[in-house]
């Protein structure tokens, strides 16, 4: 196995840093929109809002049963042909939000549905209104149940950003591929690629398992 050439690594480091920064920026932007879409879908489904609920269900099925790469190709290369202009950045964020929205919706919905009906009933029987029951009784409990799947989704979506290189966004993946093609320093390029993804993903993963353990052991569940 080839030994790493540290000079090459030092030389490439700034390029990877820039790429990592882009990966994080696009990832965070996409995730924020995914959270918004997810919240809307979860609320619409929880309250069984007619029409909107069916639309949300169709969206979730489409989003969950198609790969992000194919979604991006369609948005980036297909949509401009019917007069919808896109640029790579917007397209990447939109694609990630389209994919992530359905995953976030499931995370939030599972939290809401995990709260037993008796909690709603006892709040109502105390005279709380529907809105107050939601705000003071259901949401605080649902939120903490949704934390582990939420973190898992964040990691999943950050990983999915690696697909962005397909639409020429200069993220980590693109940078690695580009450098390999140019100079054939394959080992160093792949090493840096792995290290940078670990730097981004490992802290979140550790935070996630810490939170999950805390919620499980100190959970207020009776």
């Amino acid at each position, binding site marked *: 196995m080839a030994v790493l050439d540290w000079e090459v690594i030092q030389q490439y480091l700034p390029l990877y840093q820039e790429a990592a920064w882009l990966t994080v920026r696009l990832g965070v932007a996409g995730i924020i929109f995914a959270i918004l879409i997810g919240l809307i879908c979860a609320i619409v489904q929880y309250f069984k809002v007619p029409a909107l609920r069916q639309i949300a269900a169709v969206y979730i099925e489409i989003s969950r049963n198609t790969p992000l790469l194919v979604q991006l190709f369609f948005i980036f290369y297909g949509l401009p042909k019917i007069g919808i202009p896109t640029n790579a950045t917007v397209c990447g964020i939109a694609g990630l939000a389209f994919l992530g929205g359905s995953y976030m919706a499931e995370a939030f919905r599972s939290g809401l549905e995990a709260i037993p009906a008796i909690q709603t*009933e006892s709040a*109502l*029987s105390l005279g*709380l209104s529907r809105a107050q029951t939601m705000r003071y009784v259901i949401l*605080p*409990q649902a939120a903490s149940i949704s934390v582990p799947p939420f973190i898992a989704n964040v990691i999943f979506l950050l990983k999915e950003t690696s697909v962005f290189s397909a639409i020429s966004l200069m993220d980590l993946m693109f940078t690695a591929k580009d450098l390999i093609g140019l100079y054939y320093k394959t080992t160093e390029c792949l090493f840096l690629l792995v290290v940078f993804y670990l730097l981004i993903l490992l802290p979140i993963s550790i935070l996630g398992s810490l939170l999950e353990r805390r919620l499980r052991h100190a959970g*207020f*569940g*009776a």
Partner: protein
Amino acid sequence: MAVKILAETLLSIRHIAKRFGDNTVLDDLSLDVHKGEVIVVVGPSGCGKSTLLRCINALEPIQAGEILLDGEPIKPDGKNITELRQKVGMVFQSYDLFPHLSVLDNIVLAPRKVQKRAKAEAEAEALTLLERVGLKDKAASYPRELSGGQKQRVAIVRALCMHPEMLLFDEVTAALDPEMVREVLDVILKLATQGRTMLIVTHEMQFARAIADRVIFLDGGNILENTPPEIFFTNPQTERARQFLNMFEFAAVKHHAPAED
């Protein structure tokens, strides 16, 4: 056949019917509850006891008849439903405390958010009530740190703190370990001596006999008996009630010859 000199009617149930699909749970049922009266509802499982309480608290819509509280109709979609619900406190079988709130916050949530009472005043009352049920030192605890009996006493305090005109108890001891049943029933007995209006669904026959002004025997969605406890437990009028009471008696087996096995 009521024994007490009766005050005015607080709750009036008139010819209500409750159906789940094709399944009729309550059928043309009528009942009046007077101020200060303690009514115990007994009957076999599935007879509609719990459904009756849930209808009174408008947790279930009814398909016919009406339920009046202080002369006002109770309906799940009614405009003043939250005001009416405040007048009726309900305690459930399962420990239904809010697990994310401390004992004290469980109790003052509704007084503060619904009745807009001041924090200090609501908490002071909550602590007084907690002291009365022997749980003042648990005010800062979370529900998961309490035993079943303690949780149920907190649930009763939570209902009381809203100053309800009437209390509904839905098999509040059914999920408890035997040694905790007593501590909860004692609290309810104390409430009876204070002249509270209560509608109690229970399987504790001794307790029913001790606390009830009237016993209602419900079977097949209908009231079959509506008598003082002395009569119900010694000389029930219907065959169904007799069979029901028999289930609580045990024949002695000790002297039987050992079964061959």
